[in-house]
Every structure is written in structure tokens, then in C-alpha cells.
């Protein structure tokens, strides 16, 4: 009996090794194609960047460059173009690698699934990046404006703005990746609706007395005669 078990294990092992051996050329082809495109992408991006610097692309972009720098301060237009070129090559490398994998093996399911899913992943990555940049920019804007308006809850506002955008981005990314199905939409709807309802209740019920007292005070206050300011900044 022991011999039978051993034989059965041996034959399984042989089958696994055969499978791995069948997949190996494909994996190797994928890695080689990917690394090759990575290298070409890096070189082409470097050349593009040098050429753009040579032609003073950033200076020629003028106001456009300033607009990019406002959102992502350390990025210049030439850097942006060279990065786009690099990532195009990386994506092409993945595509070619998958095709090479397909050619190297008899497995077509994996490559079909990957090729079908790559555009979704790329779209989701762009969404995630844009959402993060937007969240950072908006939260910082709200924080600084709030502080300059002397709002003691400026940080709270800033965090609220940041998380609203991040949650929205997260939901959009999951939706784009077709993960979670209706749960994401439902969960997002409940979360957003809950936040708005909570805020409405907080202002409507919790601060009712405060608002009415404030309005009464405003109505009762005598009309102020504007006093000349003692301090002149400009």
C-alpha cells in the first residue's frame, strides 16, 4: 500500500513539474519582454527629457507649466512628458510580456484575463493618483484658508474635505475595477447620505438654540459705526 501511495505522490509530482516546466518558458519570456521594455522605456524617457530640456520646453510652456506646478509642485512639464513616455513603455512591456507568455505556453486563460483587465487597472491607477493629488491640494487649501479666516475648526474642515475626496476616489476605483459589485455603490451611498444627515441633524437640532441666540443677538445689536482701523498693512 505504501508503494502505491509513493507511486501516486511521485506521479503527482511529475505532473506538477511538467506543468511548471511548461509554464517556465512563458514566464521567462514575460520577464525578458518586460525587462527589455523597461530598459527601452527608461532610455527613451531619458532621451525625451534631455531633448525637452534642450529645447527649453518648460519655459515655452509658460503659464501651462505654472498650472501643473500648482497641483504637483515638484513636477515640471518635461518631467511629466518623460514619465508618461516611460509608463507607456511599461504598459506596452506588460502587454508584450503577456503575449509572449501566451506564445510560450498553451495557457490562454491567464493572458486573456490579464489583457482584458489591464485597461481597468490603468484607469483605476489614474483615478487613484488624481484623487490623491486632489485630496491633498483641497485639504491644504481648506486648512490654510480656514486658518487665515481665523476659524478654530480649520483642521477639522480640512480633514473632512480630504476624507470626502478619498472616500469618493476609493469608491470610484473599486467601481472601475468591478470589485465589490453593488456593495460599493450601496456602501458609498449610505456613507455619504449618513454624513449629510448627521450634519443636518447636528446643525438643525444640536445647534438650534445657538443659531437662534446668535440671530437674536444680531437683531438686537445697534448699528456699528465703523471705527478707523489703527493698523494698516498696506
Amino acid at each position, binding site marked *: 500500500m505504501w508503494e502505491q501511495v509513493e507511486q501516486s505522490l511521485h506521479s503527482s509530482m511529475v505532473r506538477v513539474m511538467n506543468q511548471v516546466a511548461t509554464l517556465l518558458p512563458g514566464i521567462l519570456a514575460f520577464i525578458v519582454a518586460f525587462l527589455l521594455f523597461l530598459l527601452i522605456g527608461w532610455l527613451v524617457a531619458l532621451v525625451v527629457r534631455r531633448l525637452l530640456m534642450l529645447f527649453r520646453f518648460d*519655459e515655452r510652456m509658460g503659464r501651462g507649466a505654472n498650472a501643473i506646478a500648482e497641483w504637483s509642485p515638484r513636477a515640471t512639464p518635461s518631467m511629466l512628458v518623460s514619465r508618461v513616455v516611460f509608463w507607456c513603455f511599461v504598459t506596452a512591456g506588460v502587454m508584450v510580456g503577456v503575449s509572449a507568455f501566451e506564445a510560450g505556453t498553451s495557457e490562454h486563460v491567464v493572458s486573456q484575463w490579464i489583457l482584458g483587465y489591464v485597461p481597468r487597472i490603468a484607469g483605476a491607477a489614474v483615478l487613484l493618483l488624481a484623487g490623491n493629488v486632489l485630496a491633498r491640494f483641497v485639504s491644504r487649501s481648506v486648512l490654510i484658508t480656514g486658518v487665515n479666516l481665523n476659524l478654530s475648526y480649520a483642521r477639522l474642515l480640512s480633514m473632512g474635505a480630504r476624507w470626502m475626496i478619498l472616500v469618493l476616489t476609493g469608491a470610484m476605483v473599486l467601481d472601475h475595477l468591478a470589485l465589490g459589485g453593488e456593495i460599493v455603490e450601496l456602501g458609498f451611498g449610505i456613507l455619504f447620505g449618513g454624513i449629510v444627515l448627521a450634519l443636518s441633524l447636528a446643525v438643525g437640532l444640536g445647534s438650534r438654540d445657538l443659531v437662534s441666540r446668535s440671530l437674536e443677538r444680531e437683531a438686537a445689536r445697534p448699528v456699528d459705526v465703523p471705527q478707523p482701523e489703527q493698523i494698516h498693512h498696506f
Partner: protein
Amino acid sequence: MAAIELSEETKREVERIGSADLVVGIAGAVAADELRSRVEPIVAELGSGLASLRIVFTWAGPASGEATGGDAEENAGRRMALLPFTPPASASGEFWAGVSAHQRTILAVAASLNARACIVLGADLAALQTHVLQLFAYAVLDRQCVAAMPVYPAGRYDGLINTGILSPLNRALFGKRIHYPIAFDFAASGGMCGQFLRQSASSNGTGQPLLWPVTLAATQFPQQGIGEVHVNVHHRVAAEGLELSAVLSQIVGSLFQEMEQYAPQWQRVRGSQATPVWGNAPAERSGGEAADPQPMLDSFLLGSRNLDEVWRLILPPNVLMELRRLTRVAPDAFRMPDELWACIVYDFALAYRLRTISRVHLLGALTPLYLGWVASYIQEVSQLGGAALEQRHEQLARAWEEKKPYLLSRWRWPDRFNP
């Protein structure tokens, strides 16, 4: 510097007049009749030196046919002409951008007329006085100054952005002890007007929205002097509706842009030179009651509680530590050392250049720090007056000069100071 393009109507007017010795420009729109009624007695009063000059008064207004009724022709015999110019397209910009757009157009008109000197005055016409014109003309025409800037009579708490940032920073950078580096009124030599026109023509039209006459004079004509004249005028600034942070961003941001543009020039400058001042200093303005620093102090403390994450990206650790120490002192003892304030502004200038964070955010984050300095300053000067106040300003400016090596080091090797 933005490119200046005179309108066709203005060019026609300029061609009609031909040339001028002195151009007096009003940086804004004024009624032609009012201007004429103000100008005629002034021209009559001008002394013998100026009476022989051909003077052109220019202002933002409608085309000559409607506004002046052909004054340019009519007054040619009297060696005076009125020349309205089409308001520049960017004249509707916020706060100082509109003033600067008009000032640039006036310099361009003066250059087109090959004027020997150009005097620019504020649109409220407060400085349109005989002795002011005489002083400016004297500084530029007789004393050969490339530019003449005004010295306004200021109270203890007036023009604090200028006192706290613009004047000391300009002095430290360009080595000229000028009280008001950006002003409603100033005079420029014909050479400077021409240089301005050439420089703006060679720019790609995407530059500096504000005009800094002192920077232009100090960088393009380093061998020629800049003078100052006492102008006993108090301009009305429509402060209603203006937000401090927006104004601070506009003006200080513009100066930081100048720093970036003229870095090779100001890095060579060491120390500063006194500038000749003409005219009589007006009597000291009464200071009134001492101002309450508490609101400014509260803004600074609120900023230090909330903006730490932003300041950390801009300021080096030792400056942050000093700021944290300041948040713990009693309000009455709150004093921001001049050296610390100079370092803060220098660090912001560097971050502006390196685009460490968005420039809008960067300049917004400066406001609470500026208010901290204001709180400290008004506590210090509440009992000072006249000479003591002037001495305090001198002390502040010297501290900025002494800290210039720090700016130079950081500008050249920005990463050395960061952990």
C-alpha cells in the same frame, strides 16, 4: 516682465506729439476736465528750470478727440500736451496689479516719446502738486538719478507689509536703502524707461504682473544712483473687501518672483548704500492710541497649531523650534526676533523658488507668521516715535542684511539645511 503693447490710438497720439522732455503719468483713470483744471495752474507755477521743458501729461482715458478736444495740438505752443492712453487689458487685476499695469503703460509711453524723465503719480491725484513734480524732476534730471522713489509720512502702524518685508528685503537684496520699493508715485529716467520697454519687448509676455522700479534700476543700472524725495501725501487705499492674505500673496509673491529672476545680480551685492533724500521731511504724524496686538497674536497661535505640517515643509528645524518656543511665551512678552523673521521670509523665498509646495499654499501659509511679526512689532513700537521709530526700522533692516549670507547659502545649497 509682461510685454507692453500700446494701443493703436495711443500710438497715434504719441506720433502726433512726437517727443517730450518730461512725461507725467497718472496711473489710473481720471476725468479729463479735472486733470486739465489741476494741471494748468501747476504748469504755470513750475519754476524756471522746468518751464522750458516740453511736458506731456498722460492718463488712462478715452481717445483724444472726445476727452481732450485736441489739447495735444492746442497746447503745443505752451510746451504742454495732454495724452490719454487706452487702459491696459490687465488693468482690472486685483489690488496692485491694476496700478502696475497703468504704471508700465506710462513708462512705455515715455519711452515712445523719448522723454528724458517720467514721473508716475497715483490715480487719486493726491501727489499732483507742483513741489512734488519739482522734487522728482530735480532728482532725475538735475541729479541724474536713474529713479526717484517717494518717502511718505507714515504713522507707527502704517504700511506694515512694507516695513516688515518689502523694504528690508529689497534693501538686503539690492543694497539700496529705499523706504518704499513699490509705490504709487515715483520717477524714472529716460534711460530706464527705454530699458524697461526693451526688456518687456524681449519677454514672452508671461511674467511679472507687478512693477518694481527699484529692482529694475538696481539691476539694469547698477552704477547710477537711486534717490528719494519726501512726499507729504497720504494715498487713500480702498482697503474694504481686500483680504490680507490675498494682498500679501500678491505683493510678496511678486517680490519672490523678482528674486528668482534677478538671482545672479543680487547674489553679488554686499551691504547697502544710503540713498540721497531731497525735500523736507513732514512733521511727525501723531501715533494715536496703542494698537491691540491680541487679534494678531491669536492668528499666529492658531496658525502654529494648525499649519505645522505645512511650515515643516518650508522652514528648517531650528526656525520651527524658535517658533514653538514663541507660542509658549506670555502675550506681553511676545517678541519675534528680527533675525528669526528675516530667516522665515528667506526660507519662504527659497521654498517659492524650489516649489516645495504649491505657491498659492506657500504664500497663504506666510500670513499667520506675518501677523505674529506684526503683533511683536506693534508691542515694541507702541511707545516709540520719530527718530526712535526710524532707528527701529534701521535695526530691522540691518538684521535682514546680516542674515543675507544665510539666504545665499540656502539659495545655493538648499538641501544642506534639510535633515
